[in-house]
Protein backbone atom coordinates (compact mmCIF):
# COMPACT_ATOMS: atom_id res chain seq x y z
CA UNK A 1 0.00 0.00 0.00
CA UNK A 2 1.63 3.18 -1.07
CA UNK A 3 -0.97 5.09 -2.98
CA UNK A 4 -2.46 8.32 -1.78
CA UNK A 5 -5.62 8.90 0.18
CA UNK A 6 -8.13 11.15 -1.60
CA UNK A 7 -10.00 13.79 0.39
CA UNK A 8 -13.04 15.06 -1.49
CA UNK A 9 -13.59 18.77 -1.19
CA UNK A 10 -16.88 20.52 -1.92
CA UNK A 11 -17.73 24.19 -1.53
CA UNK A 12 -18.37 24.46 2.20
CA UNK A 13 -16.44 21.37 3.30
CA UNK A 14 -14.76 22.35 6.55
CA UNK A 15 -13.19 19.24 8.08
CA UNK A 16 -10.86 18.61 5.12
CA UNK A 17 -7.71 19.73 6.92
CA UNK A 18 -8.73 17.71 9.97
CA UNK A 19 -8.71 14.54 7.87
CA UNK A 20 -5.40 15.51 6.33
CA UNK A 21 -3.98 15.80 9.84
CA UNK A 22 -5.22 12.32 10.81
CA UNK A 23 -4.13 10.65 7.58
CA UNK A 24 -0.69 12.24 7.41
CA UNK A 25 -0.14 11.29 11.05
CA UNK A 26 -0.48 7.70 9.81
CA UNK A 27 2.33 8.35 7.37
CA UNK A 28 0.18 8.64 4.27
CA UNK A 29 0.04 11.35 1.61
CA UNK A 30 -3.22 13.01 0.68
CA UNK A 31 -4.69 14.61 -2.42
CA UNK A 32 -7.58 17.04 -2.34
CA UNK A 33 -10.18 16.10 -4.93
CA UNK A 34 -12.10 19.13 -6.16
CA UNK A 35 -15.87 18.79 -6.53
CA UNK A 36 -15.87 20.07 -10.11
CA UNK A 37 -13.42 17.45 -11.37
CA UNK A 38 -13.43 13.71 -11.88
CA UNK A 39 -10.26 11.84 -10.96
CA UNK A 40 -8.32 8.69 -11.77
CA UNK A 41 -9.35 6.24 -9.09
CA UNK A 42 -6.31 4.02 -9.59
CA UNK A 43 -4.16 6.62 -7.86
CA UNK A 44 -5.88 6.13 -4.51
CA UNK A 45 -6.13 3.49 -1.81
CA UNK A 46 -9.09 5.06 -0.06
CA UNK A 47 -11.34 8.11 -0.15
CA UNK A 48 -12.69 10.27 2.63
CA UNK A 49 -15.64 12.66 2.35
CA UNK A 50 -15.08 15.01 5.31
CA UNK A 51 -17.60 16.90 7.38
CA UNK A 52 -18.75 20.45 6.85
CA UNK A 53 -21.67 22.37 5.47
CA UNK A 54 -21.32 21.80 1.75
CA UNK A 55 -23.52 24.30 -0.08
CA UNK A 56 -24.52 25.63 3.32
CA UNK A 57 -26.82 22.63 3.84
CA UNK A 58 -29.26 24.49 1.59
CA UNK A 59 -32.24 22.71 0.02
CA UNK A 60 -31.44 19.37 1.72
CA UNK A 61 -28.23 18.54 3.45
CA UNK A 62 -25.83 16.88 1.01
CA UNK A 63 -28.28 17.18 -1.91
CA UNK A 64 -26.37 19.66 -4.08
CA UNK A 65 -22.97 18.04 -3.39
CA UNK A 66 -24.25 14.59 -4.25
CA UNK A 67 -24.81 15.85 -7.81
CA UNK A 68 -21.34 17.35 -8.26
CA UNK A 69 -19.10 15.95 -11.05
CA UNK A 70 -16.60 14.45 -8.59
CA UNK A 71 -19.27 12.02 -7.43
CA UNK A 72 -19.04 10.12 -10.72
CA UNK A 73 -15.51 9.07 -9.76
CA UNK A 74 -16.54 8.38 -6.17
CA UNK A 75 -19.28 6.11 -7.51
CA UNK A 76 -16.81 4.33 -9.76
CA UNK A 77 -14.46 3.80 -6.83
CA UNK A 78 -17.32 2.48 -4.73
CA UNK A 79 -18.23 -0.03 -7.39
CA UNK A 80 -14.63 -1.21 -7.62
CA UNK A 81 -14.66 -1.89 -3.87
CA UNK A 82 -12.38 0.94 -2.71
CA UNK A 83 -12.79 1.82 1.00
CA UNK A 84 -14.72 5.09 1.23
CA UNK A 85 -15.49 6.88 4.48
CA UNK A 86 -18.01 9.69 4.85
CA UNK A 87 -18.00 11.59 8.12
CA UNK A 88 -20.91 13.83 9.17
CA UNK A 89 -21.68 15.91 6.05
CA UNK A 90 -19.73 13.29 4.08
CA UNK A 91 -22.15 10.65 5.39
CA UNK A 92 -25.09 12.85 4.39
CA UNK A 93 -23.68 13.22 0.86
CA UNK A 94 -23.18 9.46 0.51
CA UNK A 95 -26.81 8.91 1.49
CA UNK A 96 -28.09 11.60 -0.90
CA UNK A 97 -26.06 10.08 -3.73
CA UNK A 98 -27.54 6.65 -3.08
CA UNK A 99 -24.20 5.04 -2.24
CA UNK A 100 -25.57 4.40 1.22
CA UNK A 101 -29.21 3.65 2.06
CA UNK A 102 -31.42 5.97 4.09
CA UNK A 103 -31.22 9.65 4.85
CA UNK A 104 -30.17 11.94 7.67
CA UNK A 105 -32.85 14.32 8.89
CA UNK A 106 -33.10 17.06 11.48
CA UNK A 107 -32.15 16.07 15.04
CA UNK A 108 -35.16 15.21 17.14
CA UNK A 109 -34.29 18.12 19.47
CA UNK A 110 -34.31 20.41 16.38
CA UNK A 111 -31.01 21.92 17.45
CA UNK A 112 -27.43 21.57 16.39
CA UNK A 113 -25.67 19.47 19.00
CA UNK A 114 -21.98 19.33 19.83
CA UNK A 115 -21.18 16.82 22.55
CA UNK A 116 -19.10 13.82 23.47
CA UNK A 117 -20.94 10.55 23.02
CA UNK A 118 -20.19 6.91 23.62
CA UNK A 119 -20.63 4.65 20.61
CA UNK A 120 -20.41 0.87 20.29
CA UNK A 121 -18.58 -0.69 17.37
CA UNK A 122 -20.91 -3.29 15.86
CA UNK A 123 -18.67 -4.88 13.26
CA UNK A 124 -15.01 -5.04 12.34
CA UNK A 125 -15.91 -5.88 8.77
CA UNK A 126 -14.54 -2.55 7.49
CA UNK A 127 -10.90 -1.50 7.45
CA UNK A 128 -11.92 1.56 9.51
CA UNK A 129 -13.06 -0.62 12.42
CA UNK A 130 -10.60 -3.46 11.90
CA UNK A 131 -8.61 -2.23 14.91
CA UNK A 132 -11.59 -2.40 17.29
CA UNK A 133 -13.24 -5.31 19.01
CA UNK A 134 -16.92 -5.85 18.25
CA UNK A 135 -19.03 -4.25 20.98
CA UNK A 136 -16.09 -2.09 22.03
CA UNK A 137 -17.28 1.21 23.48
CA UNK A 138 -15.43 4.37 22.46
CA UNK A 139 -15.72 8.09 23.25
CA UNK A 140 -15.99 10.43 20.25
CA UNK A 141 -17.68 13.81 19.66
CA UNK A 142 -20.66 14.58 17.48
CA UNK A 143 -21.41 18.01 15.97
CA UNK A 144 -24.44 18.12 13.73
CA UNK A 145 -27.94 19.49 13.27
CA UNK A 146 -29.15 16.81 10.89
CA UNK A 147 -27.84 13.50 12.09
CA UNK A 148 -31.02 11.59 12.77
CA UNK A 149 -30.79 8.50 10.59
CA UNK A 150 -34.04 7.51 8.93
CA UNK A 151 -35.01 4.80 6.46
CA UNK A 152 -38.18 2.87 5.74
CA UNK A 153 -38.92 -0.26 7.76
CA UNK A 154 -37.80 -2.68 5.10
CA UNK A 155 -34.49 -0.96 4.56
CA UNK A 156 -33.79 -0.78 8.26
CA UNK A 157 -34.57 -4.49 8.67
CA UNK A 158 -32.33 -5.34 5.76
CA UNK A 159 -29.32 -3.32 6.86
CA UNK A 160 -29.58 -4.69 10.37
CA UNK A 161 -29.75 -8.27 9.13
CA UNK A 162 -26.87 -7.78 6.72
CA UNK A 163 -24.55 -6.41 9.39
CA UNK A 164 -24.54 -2.96 7.75
CA UNK A 165 -24.98 -1.04 11.00
CA UNK A 166 -21.38 -0.55 12.02
CA UNK A 167 -21.73 1.77 15.00
CA UNK A 168 -24.52 2.75 17.36
CA UNK A 169 -24.99 5.37 20.08
CA UNK A 170 -25.15 4.12 23.67
CA UNK A 171 -27.34 7.10 24.52
CA UNK A 172 -29.21 8.34 21.46
CA UNK A 173 -28.48 12.08 20.98
CA UNK A 174 -30.60 12.83 17.91
CA UNK A 175 -33.48 10.37 17.57
CA UNK A 176 -31.75 8.08 15.07
CA UNK A 177 -33.72 4.94 14.38
CA UNK A 178 -32.25 2.00 16.34
CA UNK A 179 -29.58 4.34 17.73
CA UNK A 180 -27.75 4.14 14.41
CA UNK A 181 -24.60 6.28 14.32
CA UNK A 182 -23.15 4.85 11.12
CA UNK A 183 -23.95 2.42 8.33
CA UNK A 184 -22.21 0.50 5.53
CA UNK A 185 -23.23 -0.44 2.02
CA UNK A 186 -23.92 -4.06 1.21
CA UNK A 187 -20.35 -4.70 0.06
CA UNK A 188 -19.06 -3.06 3.28
CA UNK A 189 -16.57 -0.85 1.46
CA UNK A 190 -18.59 2.38 1.72
CA UNK A 191 -18.99 3.58 5.29
CA UNK A 192 -20.69 6.64 6.74
CA UNK A 193 -20.97 7.87 10.32
CA UNK A 194 -22.07 11.03 12.09
CA UNK A 195 -19.51 11.17 14.95
CA UNK A 196 -16.05 12.61 14.25
CA UNK A 197 -13.26 10.10 14.96
CA UNK A 198 -10.68 12.65 13.75
CA UNK A 199 -11.66 14.91 16.66
CA UNK A 200 -10.79 12.17 19.16
CA UNK A 201 -7.30 11.57 17.84
CA UNK A 202 -4.90 12.84 20.51
CA UNK A 203 -5.28 12.62 24.29
CA UNK A 204 -5.24 16.39 24.64
CA UNK A 205 -8.46 16.56 22.63
CA UNK A 206 -10.23 14.79 25.48
CA UNK A 207 -10.06 11.30 23.96
CA UNK A 208 -7.89 9.44 21.47
CA UNK A 209 -10.41 6.64 20.94
CA UNK A 210 -11.02 7.65 17.33
CA UNK A 211 -7.40 7.30 16.29
CA UNK A 212 -7.76 3.61 15.48
CA UNK A 213 -10.23 4.39 12.69
CA UNK A 214 -7.20 5.52 10.71
CA UNK A 215 -4.68 2.99 12.03
CA UNK A 216 -5.11 0.59 9.11
CA UNK A 217 -3.58 3.21 6.83
CA UNK A 218 -0.21 3.04 8.57
Amino acid sequence: MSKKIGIVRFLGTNCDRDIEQAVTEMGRKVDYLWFRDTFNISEYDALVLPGGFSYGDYLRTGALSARAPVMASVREAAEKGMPILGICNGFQILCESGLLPGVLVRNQGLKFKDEWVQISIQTSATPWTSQYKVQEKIKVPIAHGEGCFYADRETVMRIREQDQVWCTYDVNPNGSIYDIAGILNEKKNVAGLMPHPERAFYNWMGSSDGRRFFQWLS
Partner: protein
Amino acid sequence: MKLGIKILPRPEVLDSQGRTVLNSLKESGFKLNECKVGKYVVIETEHSNLEAAKKEIQRMADYVLYNPLIETYEVEQL
Protein backbone atom coordinates in the same frame (compact mmCIF):
# COMPACT_ATOMS: atom_id res chain seq x y z
CA MET B 1 -61.16 23.59 4.96
CA LYS B 2 -57.53 23.25 3.88
CA LEU B 3 -55.34 26.22 3.11
CA GLY B 4 -51.78 26.55 1.98
CA ILE B 5 -49.41 29.28 3.11
CA LYS B 6 -46.56 30.06 0.78
CA ILE B 7 -43.71 31.81 2.59
CA LEU B 8 -40.92 33.39 0.53
CA PRO B 9 -38.00 35.69 1.30
CA ARG B 10 -38.88 39.38 0.78
CA PRO B 11 -37.79 40.44 -2.70
CA GLU B 12 -35.26 43.00 -1.39
CA VAL B 13 -33.77 40.64 1.16
CA LEU B 14 -30.90 38.37 0.22
CA ASP B 15 -32.10 34.80 -0.29
CA SER B 16 -28.91 32.92 0.43
CA GLN B 17 -30.53 29.54 -0.11
CA GLY B 18 -32.02 30.57 -3.44
CA ARG B 19 -28.69 32.02 -4.57
CA THR B 20 -26.88 28.77 -3.80
CA VAL B 21 -29.44 26.56 -5.53
CA LEU B 22 -29.45 28.91 -8.54
CA ASN B 23 -25.66 28.82 -8.89
CA SER B 24 -25.54 25.08 -8.47
CA LEU B 25 -28.23 24.44 -11.08
CA LYS B 26 -26.55 26.83 -13.51
CA GLU B 27 -23.26 25.07 -13.03
CA SER B 28 -24.97 21.77 -13.86
CA GLY B 29 -26.02 23.26 -17.20
CA PHE B 30 -29.61 24.27 -16.46
CA LYS B 31 -30.83 27.57 -17.83
CA LEU B 32 -32.65 29.77 -15.34
CA ASN B 33 -32.78 33.40 -14.26
CA GLU B 34 -34.08 33.29 -10.76
CA CYS B 35 -34.51 30.88 -7.92
CA LYS B 36 -36.21 31.49 -4.59
CA VAL B 37 -36.44 29.01 -1.78
CA GLY B 38 -39.19 29.33 0.80
CA LYS B 39 -41.51 27.25 2.90
CA TYR B 40 -44.96 25.87 2.35
CA VAL B 41 -47.31 25.24 5.24
CA VAL B 42 -50.60 23.37 4.88
CA ILE B 43 -53.24 23.97 7.53
CA GLU B 44 -56.70 22.49 7.95
CA THR B 45 -59.12 24.60 9.94
CA GLU B 46 -62.62 24.14 11.32
CA HIS B 47 -63.85 27.10 9.29
CA SER B 48 -66.14 26.51 6.34
CA ASN B 49 -66.17 30.16 5.28
CA LEU B 50 -63.12 31.05 3.17
CA GLU B 51 -62.82 34.61 4.43
CA ALA B 52 -62.95 33.53 8.06
CA ALA B 53 -60.43 30.78 7.43
CA LYS B 54 -58.07 33.20 5.71
CA LYS B 55 -58.35 35.61 8.61
CA GLU B 56 -57.52 32.84 11.03
CA ILE B 57 -54.51 31.79 8.94
CA GLN B 58 -53.35 35.39 8.79
CA ARG B 59 -53.43 35.51 12.56
CA MET B 60 -51.31 32.38 12.68
CA ALA B 61 -48.91 33.84 10.16
CA ASP B 62 -48.52 37.02 12.17
CA TYR B 63 -48.20 35.03 15.36
CA VAL B 64 -45.41 32.69 14.32
CA LEU B 65 -45.40 31.36 10.77
CA TYR B 66 -43.43 34.10 9.11
CA ASN B 67 -40.98 36.84 10.04
CA PRO B 68 -42.13 40.13 8.47
CA LEU B 69 -38.60 41.53 8.54
CA ILE B 70 -37.37 39.00 6.04
CA GLU B 71 -40.35 37.10 4.62
CA THR B 72 -43.67 37.58 2.84
CA TYR B 73 -46.52 35.10 2.56
CA GLU B 74 -49.58 34.30 0.49
CA VAL B 75 -52.57 32.21 1.51
CA GLU B 76 -54.39 29.99 -0.97
CA GLN B 77 -57.31 27.61 -0.73
CA LEU B 78 -56.53 23.97 -1.47
